């Protein structure tokens, strides 16, 4: 073109880590095709169950038990759907090439997409978890707040794991791997085999929730310090690996 284009000089702001354009495109891609309805359904179900049990349940111990299991499972599955699609979907259809064929750093691409996935998981799973707790126990109750903080933390870690899975494997394998982790590793093994909880995001969430709610039904056999330390370590390692994976992103060429 004849007109010259000039570039803004580099600015050392959040732009180095998060890119607003990447985030907006990711948000629109994730929420297109009426997916908001799909994401909202489990949340509506959870709030409905909470409202129903609040009116009908005889036992007073159901809130931590139900919201600590079903509620956190919804956090995990929402993160699997959202975190697994923010990079995996674009890798699958090839549209990620348009982002990667720009000078935006791969780290910024991964972190921007990850941030959107975390925010959507908070919206569609952590906030409903709080609402369900608030319906059962009241808005300022420590259980509702503990579950909210636990779910917020869980969304941070789960999404890092699932973003990594989707950057490293095909969408089918990433989904299968994520489901195995959530349903078998966390759902089955973590409650049966001592020590497995150390590598369970659900247990980190429960331990963090318990640190606020002080409710024995949320006991994860982890101290809150261990849970926070492990959650932070897993998140950082998963994101570093995801950035490295995208840095060597390859398009398969033609083979004679």
């Amino acid at each position: 073109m004849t007109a010259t284009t000039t570039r803004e000089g580099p600015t050392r702001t959040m732009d180095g880590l998060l890119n607003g354009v990447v985030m907006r495109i990711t948000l629109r891609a994730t929420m297109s095709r009426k997916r908001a309805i799909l994401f909202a359904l489990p949340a509506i179900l959870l709030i409905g169950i909470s409202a129903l049990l609040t009116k009908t349940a005889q036992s007073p111990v159901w809130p931590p038990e139900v919201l600590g299991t079903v509620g956190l499972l919804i956090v995990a599955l929402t993160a699997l759907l959202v975190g697994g699609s923010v990079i995996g979907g674009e890798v699958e259809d090839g549209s990620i090439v348009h982002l990667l064929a720009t000078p935006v750093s791969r780290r910024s691409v991964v972190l921007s997409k990850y941030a959107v996935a975390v925010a959507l998981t908070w919206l569609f799973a952590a906030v409903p978890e709080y609402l369900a707790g608030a319906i059962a126990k009241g808005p300022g109750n420590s259980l509702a707040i503990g579950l909210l903080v636990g779910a917020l933390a869980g969304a941070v870690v789960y999404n890092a794991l699932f973003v990594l899975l989707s950057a490293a494997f095909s969408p089918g394998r990433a989904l299968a791997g994520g489901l195995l982790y959530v349903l078998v590793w966390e759902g089955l093994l973590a409650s049966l085999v001592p020590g497995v909880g150390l590598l369970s995001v659900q247990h980190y969430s429960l331990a963090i929730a318990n640190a606020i709610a002080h409710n024995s039904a949320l006991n994860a056999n982890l101290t809150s310090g261990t849970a926070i330390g492990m959650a932070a370590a897993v998140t950082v390692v998963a994101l570093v690996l995801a950035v490295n994976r995208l840095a060597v992103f390859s398009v398969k060429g033609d083979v004679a």
Partner: protein
Amino acid sequence: MTSIELRGVSRWYGNVVAVNDVTMTIGPGVTGLLGPNGAGKTTILHMIAGFLAPSRGDVTVAGRASWRNPGMFRQVGLVPERDSVYAFLTGREFVAATARLHRLVDPDGAARRAIELLEMTDAQDRKVATYSKGMRQRIKVAAALVHDPEVVLLDEPFNGMDPRQRLHMMDVLHAEAEQGRVIVFSSHILEEVERLSGTIQVIVGGRLAASGDFRAIRRLMTNRPHLFTVRSSDDRALAAALIGRPSVNAVELTPHGLQVRASDYGTFTREVAGITRDHGIRLLQVSPADESLESVFTYLLAA
């Protein structure tokens, strides 16, 4: 002066060699990567764009290795073959978003100019999902040109375009090249390359089969022996008449007509109608038996 260098570049997938020891330098102007499907053109373009690591050798753009170097895209625009533009964006949103990713000072102005250049202004506010294949190609090119790159890489850019769109795209790319840019495009269609590029790199079976001025290579192609299938009202009489001509090397009588090996493509095709008329024979069919690109390339490779 910006240039692309490949030195001893190979790329293999397991036991399959996609690109085999290719060395080439591509400077300003339009260069066509020509070759049959599966020849390795796309693999070479992906290595130049840094989307594939060479298994051996070096690929540099403007003196720097392209692999793991996203900063390169300040000077490079890429038009991938895959039809994968974000369908939920409008054409204008897509090009402007690309301009913002390049951190241009006036992204909307740059997007408007690029869209005008590709004659997509009328369709710019429609979602990409509603675009035809040719329109998607053009909006991808607009996005690739939005930051005025020194190097433009286009993978099969004319796929899905109608003839008018092709001509216009060729004009655009010529104009870009005249400003000193390095324009590299891949194609498996000889005529596209002929119209567009002065320099070609012919890739066959992962190897660089020919390199240089298009017209010189085209002469090499057209002056070689060609095989034709000819059917007429009297094949035997026609065979006798043809074998006496200098432009014909051999004639074989088959149940399906004559197989004629002509020494010179141009002379034979000009003469054949006159010969049949002079002998009172009715000509039913003249078709090149080996005019596919593959046979041309096989010949080039053997030459």
